[in-house]
Each structure stands twice: as structure tokens, then as C-alpha cells.
């Protein structure tokens, strides 16, 4: 019986080649997109789940809000982790991490910079699932100056993983004993380290200080202990330990802070949430994270494209229901039950889906490398490694087949045999309303995607062209210039002599850099500690503002030659000026602790600079203080040359002459800037592709309906032509119904797209508005594409010799 169904299905498909092509083609595109997005979403959702105990691991976070300034961080006090384990048996283990963004590792005569290193407690291998290829996980990180390498690092430095006991010279200061080699951390992890250094060499890892928030702290709880329990215990700890600390050091209590409407809070974030929710307000992330919004957007896009493809299928089957209805009638009189007919129609749509699925699997496998590149992550489609994928695919196949075949299966099978055999329903026109509605749905989706694409493109352009308060073009950045030590000034002078170099500044605190620090300041020497304000405060030199093309809006730049007192001078940005509330900030003083709060240092404001964006445009500009002080972290040179590589080469020669063997690391500031928006750029690119594919699939369906309509109205067209209708008249006649549907779709899509895209834009602190012309443009695109699709068929029908079409009757 089933074979019989498939035979009929196959012959039907073969007979209706055009419709089959449209159905299979559309579904293949839809399923390919669906598969790729499934892999993407699955990958996103799999973050940190490689840990066998992932559901029992939490990271502790800090949320301090005092005097209108916030300190939000994923780092907590050094002593928090040990205290939790000591006081509460429900907390089994803690592990603290302190990432090091650059360490210097000696390899032969060379010193290489390594960016993925961290100090870690020895318990890391018990909390996280990080298998060792060599060494004992229990003891690997217990002794000071021991290091565990990743497989990659081990091969890089020793060409082997069997290296336990070997020595490694790190940071030009100490020899570390290799005590283990771990497998590389999985891609879907929120941290990746190649070097784990023993925490025991860090003195503050044993400190009892409740003020310093230095460590990323993870706790492993016992089974059955939940987030709420941890949060309640953290609150207890805050009152038990943190409050007395404040009382003792700062002379005010937690209760006083809370009375002011401020708060000091600690919380636990489940490990599986870190990838999506960790970095919203927190700049202290280990690695940039994902965005749950994109998971929703991409899931929705995938489902919608599949839906468009399913609608094609449904539409073409309703259009051709006339011929199938007769078959239903015959089969019923021959003794078929309704459920057998349902099964027959469903197996037909499953057959088509299975064909499309096979094609889609091939297409997805071919496209996966490109998609991975576009999405910036490693994804595989290896079915043997991921047996659950097969389940997903079959599930997808069954659902899509059911959806696509639902109409003929459940509607046609319900026909009374007599009605269809008598020839009622044979026109197939009574389903026209349903078809129109479905076409509208398709074009609503397509229009929303078109509008979304335009809005994303606009926002990315806006980011590129926005005045961000400094000039990032033609700036060469040299990273990690510490090795120059006392030669820094000589080096800078030497570089400035190279033709094409206009100016240069030395500081690690660059607008596109990673250096940040936010200490406390006071407006008043005798102010209570609780009146502290937290701002960014950076050490820069007097060349900083001119080199980066920033603008002083009041006062002046640093000038140590002419103003001896500039060593205690500061320059603030407009946002800081606003927050401080001085009418005329110039000459006013701010105070900050030299070592502790009893010893305050005064600084006078000599200038105000125009706000510049030193975070991504997702975040607003925050208060900033610039102070004149040597900071050798990196250098930035403004250059003007047509031969940039020659210039870089000359800089490199100078570097190698002064510090041979040290790594020469450089970048261009505009590239650094762009990496801030890599995720947005990627999303934009992926979105554009989806929009294009959605429209192609929708147009396939529209073309199919146009063919059907033209076929159905052949006689009418013939009669009209005989009576003098021109080709234009006929094309208009056939096209206008479709265009009407597209217009309705645009009207529905406009508010929908506005709402969705406004939500997306709200994630940026600096954003474009959605102009009315975006909708007009999207509408025009949709209509032009639809018109092109439909008119092709209409013109063909209109040009047919009427005698031919009338003869067939």
C-alpha cells in the first residue's frame, strides 16, 4: 500500500515538473537555511555545557551602586570563594581565575607574547571538565610556579605533550615547572586558556581583604542546591563580613548605604547563562560573549524561511487540488478510508521533503565552511559524532512535511466522493482566498526581512560614519611596548623622525584598547567615603589629545614644559563635567586616595575635552578623567603616507634594533575599532543573506501561482484577445491581483518591522532612526521583484496565439 502511495507521489511529481521544481527547490533552500541556523543556535546554546557538572557551577558577580556610580563586575573579592566553602557545606568547591591578557614566554632565544593565560586555583580540574593528557589533575596546580599548558601550547613550545617536569621561562622573571598538559578547551567555552599558572604564587589569593575584587570566582554546589539558595547565602555573607569591613576601614555601615538608596550586592550566575547574559553592563568580561537576542532573531528567521517554503507547497497543492480531488473521490468509492488518504497525501509531501532534505544536507555541508566563516565560529555537521542531529533532522523533516502537506491531507481527504465526481469543486477557485492569504503571509515575512536588512545596513553605516570624538584613521598602534623600559622616549623620538609619522603618544589607555581602570574620586577633601564617585581614570601623556585628534572644548591640553604643576593636573570629558556638576570646572580640584582613604591627593582640572566613545556604541560615554603620567603599555602614531607597509617595516627595524627578540605587535586603530562591531557586522551579513533567500523562495512560489493562474485562464485570455485586448491589458489583468497582495503585505509588514527593528536598535546607545523612506524603499523592492516574477509568466500567456488556447477547449 505504502509503495503504491510513493509510486503515485513519484509519478505526480514527475508529471508536474515545474511545480515539483518549485516545491523541491523552495524547500531545499528553506531546509538548508534551517539546518545551518539549527547548527548555529545549537552551537550557541551549547556554551559551557561540555562541563559534566555545568548545572551545578555558578559564577559570582558584584553589583555595587553608590552615589549614582556603578561598579558591576564578574569579579568578586579574593576571599569570597574560600569563605563560601568554609561556611556552607552545600558549596562543594570554589575556583578562582585571574586572566593575564599578555604574558611573555621564552622559546629558545625568542620571547613570544601569549594572550591566553590565567592564574587558577588547583581545584579548576575538579570544577570544570578539562581533561589532562599528562600530569595529575589533583596536584598539578598546587605548588607555586607550576604551569599547565594546553595541547596547542605544548606543541608550540616543546613539539610534544609528554613534557611534565620541563621548565618554561615566563615574563622574563621566573622559571615555571610544567606539571600538566590539558586538552585544548572546547570552542564553545566562555574562556580559553593556553597557560594555567598556579594561584598559590599570588599573595593576595590568601588575603582576608573584603575590598579588592580581583578574581573571577566559580563555585560548584552540591546536587539540589539552587541559585536562590546561593544568592541568599551571598546576602548573609555581605552582612556578616562585608559590612564590618566597610565599618572598620571606611567608617560607615552597609545599613547607611542602603538607607541612601544605594546597594552592595553579590549574586550567582548559572554557568550556562554566562555566554548570553554576562556582559550586558559589565566590561570585565574574559571573552566577548554571545547575545541571546541573536539566538531569537536567527531562530525566527530560520523558521520563517521554512514557513515561506511550506506555504509554497501548500499553495501549489491547493491550486492543483482539482485534479487531486477527483482522485480522492475515486479512491473513496473503491473503499479507501479517510485516514488512508491522509497518509497518502502526507507520504507524498514527506517524499518531497525527504528529497529536499537530502539536497539540503548536501548544500548545508558545502556551505557550512562559508557560513562558519561568516558567523565567526567553528561548526561541523558530522552526523556520526552528533547522533542527536539525526533526530533533529528527522524531526524537522516530519514537521515540515506535515505542515506542507496538511492542506491536501486534511482538507482534500474530507471531500465527499459524490461532490467531486459530479464536478463540483473542480475549478479549484474556492481555495483562492486561502492562497491569497498565504501569499500575503509570505510577503509580510519577506518585507520585514527587507526592511530589517536596510535598517541593519543603515546602523552599520551610522557606526562607521559617526563622529566618535577622535580620529581613528591612519593611526598605527604598537601593542605591549613595556620591553622598551627606559628607552621609550628615545624610541618615540626615533619613530617621529621617520617621514610620514606626524605625532605619537604613549599609553595603554587607547579608545580602542582594553586597558581600563575606574578608581574613586572625591569632590571635597573632607568628604565622607560614601560620597565617592567612580569614573574611568587614565594615565596619558601630553601628546595623547593631539595625536588622536580629540578636541579640547574648555581650558587647555597638558603642557609640562610650561606648567610645572601639570603633574597634578587632570582633564575631564564632558560627561564627567556634567556628573560633577561644577558650573565652571576649570581650576576645581578632585581628590583621590594615594594608598588609602586617609591620604588623599589633590588634582586640579585644567581642561575639558569633547566626549569620545571609548566603549562600543552599544554603550553610552561614561565619565573619564585623564591624568598626566607615564604609562608604557602601548604607543599610537598618527601617520600620513601612501606606503603604509614600508613605514611599518621601518618602525619594526627600529624596534628590533632597540629590543631584539621581543615580539613586535602592531595594529591599525580603525581595524581595532571595527572588531568592536564584528558581531553586529556578522549579524548584518547573515541577515542580508537570509532576506535574499527568503525573497527567492517567496518568488518561486509566486511564479508557481502565476503559471497556474495563466494556465487556468488560458481560455479567458484567448477570448479577450480575440475581442481586441492588447498584450498590456492582459499582463495588467494577470499581474494586478498579485501586486495587490504584495501591497497588502507591505502595509502589514511596516509596523511589524518597525517594532522589531526598533527593539534591535535600542541595544545601541547611539543609533539611527528608522526613516520613512526605508519602508518606501523596501516596498518598492518587494513590488519590483514580485512584478518581475509574475509578469514573466503573464507576458508569456499574453503573447500566446488565441487560436491555440481556444482550440484546446
Amino acid at each position, binding site marked *: *500500500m505504502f509503495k*503504491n502511495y510513493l509510486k*503515485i507521489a513519484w*509519478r505526480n511529481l514527475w508529471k508536474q515538473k515545474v511545480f515539483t521544481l518549485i516545491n523541491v527547490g523552495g524547500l531545499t533552500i528553506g531546509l538548508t537555511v534551517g539546518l545551518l541556523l539549527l547548527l548555529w543556535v545549537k552551537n550557541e546554546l551549547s556554551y559551557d555545557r561540555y562541563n559534566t557538572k555545568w548545572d551545578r557551577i555558578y559564577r559570582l558577580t558584584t553589583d555595587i551602586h553608590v552615589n549614582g556610580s556603578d561598579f558591576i563586575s564578574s569579579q568578586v573579592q579574593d576571599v569570597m570563594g574560600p569563605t563560601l566553602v568554609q561556611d556552607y557545606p552545600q558549596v562543594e568547591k570554589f575556583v578562582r581565575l585571574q586572566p593575564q591578557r599578555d604574558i611573555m614566554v621564552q622559546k629558545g632565544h625568542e620571547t613570544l607574547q601569549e594572550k591566553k593565560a590565567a592564574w587558577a586555583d588547583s581545584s579548576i580540574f575538579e570544577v570544570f571538565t578539562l581533561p589532562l593528557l599528562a600530569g595529575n589533575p589533583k596536584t598539578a596546580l598546587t605548588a607555586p610556579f607550576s604551569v599547565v599548558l594546553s595541547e596547542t601550547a605544548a606543541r608550540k613550545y616543546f613539539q610534544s605533550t609528554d613534557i611534565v617536569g620541563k621548565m618554561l621561562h615566563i615574563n622574563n622573571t621566573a622559571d615555571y615547572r610544567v606539571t600538566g598538559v590539558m586538552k585544548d578547551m572546547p570552542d564553545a567555552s566562555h574562556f580559553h586558556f593556553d597557560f594555567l599558572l598556579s594561584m598559590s604564587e599570588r599573595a593576595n589569593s590568601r588575603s582576608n581583604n573584603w575590598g579588592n575584587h580581583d578574581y573571577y570566582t566559580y563555585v560548584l554546589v552540591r546536587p539540589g542546591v539552587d541559585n536562590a539558595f546561593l544568592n541568599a547565602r551571598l546576602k548573609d555573607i555581605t552582612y556578616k563580613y562585608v559590612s564590618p569591613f566597610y565599618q572598620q576601614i571606611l567608617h560607615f555601615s552597609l545599613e547607611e548605604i542602603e538607607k541612601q538608596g544605594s546597594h552592595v550586592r553579590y549574586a550567582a550566575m548559572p554557568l550556562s547563562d554566562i555566554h548570553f547574559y554576562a556582559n550586558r553592563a559589565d566590561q570585565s568580561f574574559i571573552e566577548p560573549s554571545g547575545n541571546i537576542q541573536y539566538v531569537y532573531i536567527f531562530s525566527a528567521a530560520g523558521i520563517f524561511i521554512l514557513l515561506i517554503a511550506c506555504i509554497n507547497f501548500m499553495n501549489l497543492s491547493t491550486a492543483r487540488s482539482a485534479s487531486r480531488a*477527483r482522485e480522492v473521490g475515486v479512491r473513496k468509492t*473503491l*473503499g*479507501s478510508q479517510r485516514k*488512508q488518504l491522509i497518509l497518502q497525501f502526507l507520504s507524498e509531501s514527506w517524499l518531497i521533503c525527504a528529497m529536499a532534505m537530502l539536497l539540503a544536507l548536501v548544500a548545508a555541508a558545502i556551505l557550512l565552511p562559508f557560513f562558519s566563516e561568516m558567523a565567526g565560529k567553528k561548526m561541523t555537521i558530522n552526523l556520526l559524532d552528533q547522533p542527536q542531529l539525526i533526530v533533529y533532522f528527522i524531526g524537522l523533516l516530519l514537521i515540515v512535511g506535515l505542515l506542507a502537506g496538511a492542506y491536501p491531507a486534511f482538507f482534500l481527504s474530507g471531500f465527499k466522493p459524490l461532490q467531486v*465526481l459530479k464536478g463540483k469543486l473542480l475549478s479549484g477557485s474556492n481555495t483562492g482566498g486561502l492562497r491569497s492569504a498565504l501569499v500575503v503571509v509570505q510577503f509580510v515575512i519577506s518585507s520585514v526581512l527587507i526592511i530589517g536588512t536596510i535598517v541593519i545596513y543603515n546602523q552599520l553605516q551610522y557606526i562607521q560614519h559617526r563622529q566618535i570624538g577622535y580620529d581613528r584613521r591612519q593611526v598605527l598602534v604598537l601593542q605591549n611596548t613595556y620591553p622598551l623600559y627606559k628607552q621609550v622616549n628615545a624610541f618615540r623620538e626615533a619613530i617621529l623622525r621617520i617621514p610620514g609619522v606626524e605625532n605619537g603618544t604613549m599609553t595603554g589607555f587607547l579608545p580602542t584598547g582594553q586597558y581600563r581602570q575606574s578608581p574613586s574620586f572625591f569632590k571635597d577633601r573632607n568628604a565622607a567615603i560614601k560620597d565617592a564617585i567612580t569614573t574611568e581614570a587614565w594615565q596619558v601623556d601630553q601628546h595623547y589629545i593631539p595625536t588622536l585628534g580629540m578636541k579640547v572644548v574648555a581650558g587647555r591640553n597638558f603642557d609640562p614644559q610650561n606648567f610645572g604643576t601639570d603633574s597634578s593636573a587632570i582633564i575631564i570629558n564632558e560627561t564627567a563635567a556634567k556628573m560633577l556638576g561644577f558650573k565652571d570646572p576649570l581650576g576645581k580640584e578632585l581628590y583621590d586616595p594615594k594608598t588609602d582613604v586617609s591620604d588623599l591627593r589633590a588634582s586640579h582640572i585644567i581642561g575639558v575635552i569633547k566626549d569620545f566613545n571609548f566603549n562600543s556604541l552599544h554603550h553610552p560615554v561614561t565619565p573619564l578623567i585623564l591624568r598626566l603620567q607615564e604609562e608604557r603599555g602601548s604607543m599610537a602614531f598618527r601617520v600620513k603616507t601612501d606606503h603604509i607597509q614600508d613605514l611599518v617595516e621601518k618602525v619594526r627595524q627600529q624596534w628590533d634594533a632597540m629590543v631584539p627578540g621581543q615580539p613586535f605587535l602592531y595594529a591599525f586603530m580603525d581595524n581595532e575599532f571595527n572588531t568592536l562591531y564584528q558581531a553586529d557586522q556578522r549579524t548584518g551579513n547573515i541577515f542580508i543573506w537570509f532576506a535574499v533567500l527568503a525573497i527567492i523562495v517567496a518568488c518561486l512560489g509566486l511564479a508557481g501561482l502565476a503559471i497556474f493562474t495563466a494556465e487556468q485562464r488560458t481560455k479567458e485570455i484567448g477570448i479577450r484577445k480575440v475581442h481586441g485586448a492588447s498584450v498590456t491589458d492582459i499582463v495588467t489583468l494577470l499581474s494586478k491581483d498579485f501586486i495587490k497582495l504584495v501591497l497588502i503585505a507591505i502595509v502589514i509588514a511596516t509596523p511589524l518591522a518597525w517594532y522589531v527593528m526598533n527593539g534591535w536598535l535600542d541595544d545601541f546607545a547611539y543609533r539611527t532612526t528608522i526613516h520613512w523612506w526605508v519602508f518606501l524603499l523596501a516596498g518598492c523592492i518587494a513590488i519590483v521583484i514580485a512584478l518581475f516574477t509574475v509578469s514573466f509568466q503573464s507576458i508569456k500567456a499574453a503573447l500566446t496565439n488565441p487560436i491555440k488556447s481556444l482550440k484546446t477547449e
Partner: protein
Amino acid sequence: MIQLKHISKHYPVGFGKNEVLKDVDLTIFPGEFVSIMGPSGSGKSTLLHILGLLEEPSTGEYLFEGEPVQRMSEKKRTQLHRGSIGFVFQAYHLIDELTVYENIETPLLYKNMPASERKSRVADVLDRFNMVAKKDLFPNQLSGGQQQLVGIARAIVAEPRVILADEPTGNLHSDQARVIMQMFKHLNETDKITIIQVTHSEQNAAFGHRVIEIRDGKIQ
């Protein structure tokens, strides 16, 4: 075999109703060959549809082999379609996507007959109808008369006790029509199948034992 008692059928038209059959009493015995005749709109097709369980009477009682049809479940009716009643249509209603062989095989599939038995049955019927050579052709490759032969072959392959034929020769010219009618006569005489046909033609009606005249929904 078939007993109709006070059967009426009406369709709602506007606020009133259109009476198609009025108080029809009819008994058909096993092995009969009956022709229903009457002008267009007289209700003869409706009568046949009621006999074939394709339509339900508005009032009255219908006994098929002694069992009241009104009280039969959908399942039981399907059983009758599978085993006891065969249909032959004016427009043949073959399934275009199936070959001659497969069209004939279809009713057996619905009876869940084992493959080997199906094969021999279909082969048997093809042989009887002299269509072995044409078994792999599709309906559109056959003439109207040949298509109707396939239609009849399909109707009898499941060995029904009744064949209901709705103007089986209406689309055929007279030579073809005669072949079809002789086939019916032959089936009636040798296989003892009860045959009920609706026809316009006196000639065709003459092949049967009995003619039922129907006019304005009433049997004359």
C-alpha cells in the same frame, strides 16, 4: 438483496426544498440485471447514488442484504465499498497517474490482500478482458472504450456482489457501447453479479432483465 422502503430525497433550495425522490419503494433480487431509465433531472442518478451509499436518503429505509444502511458506521460502509459494491462511471474516473494494471489493483490494496493473490487476481481479470498487452499503459494512452473496460475490470476485481453503473456508455460511440454492455451481460450471467445501470438508451436497457422507469422522482 436490495430493499428500498419509502425513500425520499430532497435538497434545500432557498427557503424551500427541491424533492428529487418521492417515496420510492424498490426491491432488487440477487443476480438481477436492472436498468434505471428516465429523462434528465428525474432523479435516476440520485437513486443510484443512494444505492451506492454515496448519498443518504432524507427519509425512508434502505436494507442492503437485510441490514439497515442508515445505522451502519462509516467503517462498515467502507467495508461494503471494498467488498460488495463496484462502481462504473460515465467518465471512467481512472487514476491518471496509475497504469492499467495498477488501476485494477487499487481496490485489492484497500482490501489488504496479499501480494501474490493480488497478482493472480489482476492477471486473471486482464486475461478475461483481453488487456494483457495493455497492462503497462496509462489511461490517457487508451481509447474511451478501452478506458471503460479498465473501469469495469477495476469494478469487478474485488468480486463485488453488485455493480452500480452510472451511464457507463454515455461517453462512447455505439460499437464501443455494445462491447461494454455485452461484458455486463456476461458478468451477470456467468459470475451472477447483480448489475444496476442508469442509462438513456433503450438499446442498452434491453440487455437487462428489468427496466425501472423513473419520472419526477417517482417510479412509474
